[in-house]
């Protein structure tokens, strides 16, 4: 079902990464996540039980 992405191109010495891979990705504050989640849930109806799970995460 999932679309497999094209893999990074090798140059003989290692993997060649796209420029985005050089990015520094900051920590996100919990309050910021909570506020964003609230907006997402309201906009898309998330958390109301209407979405059907496609898999079950179980303890390994």
């Amino acid at each position: 079902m999932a679309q497999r992405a094209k893999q990074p191109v090798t140059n003989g010495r290692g993997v060649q990464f796209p420029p985005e891979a050089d990015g520094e990705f900051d920590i996100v504050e919990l309050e910021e996540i909570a506020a964003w989640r609230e907006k997402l849930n309201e906009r898309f109806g998330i958390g109301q039980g209407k979405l059907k799970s496609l898999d079950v995460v179980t303890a390994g």
Partner: protein
Amino acid sequence: MTSPDWVLRPPYTYDVVTGFFPETSPKMTWATNPRPLLVCGRAQDPETKMFFCRVAYGTTKQIEKAHEDDLVIGNMSMLDQLGLKRTTRFVIHSGRQMVILPWIAEFFRPWSGYSSPVLSSLPEEMQHYVGGVLGSLDDLPQF
């Protein structure tokens, strides 16, 4: 504007994908530099057919302060395998650190050279580890 083809093909749970987290950033860098995210669950809206992903974000900061349950990728070989260049910590120790996002171009974007936001899939042993952590959480965002 038409949707990219990949929105019709959701990632698998335990895939590493690239997207925007959070919605806004003080530096406003989110729109041009999507970050690695770990898919921690998937769902679909039966009415709209839209796919949704529960995601944990990846960070390259404060690696040394990682929670013991977080997934830290630092091994060069594993970084290469997963399509990551920098040591990355996926923040999976709490459901409060995750959100559920629609699998659409507003929230996900492929890195240059990729045909979809899916970068890679965790190897099986890491999937077991992450599954164990997720299974122990009582605050996972619910679909």
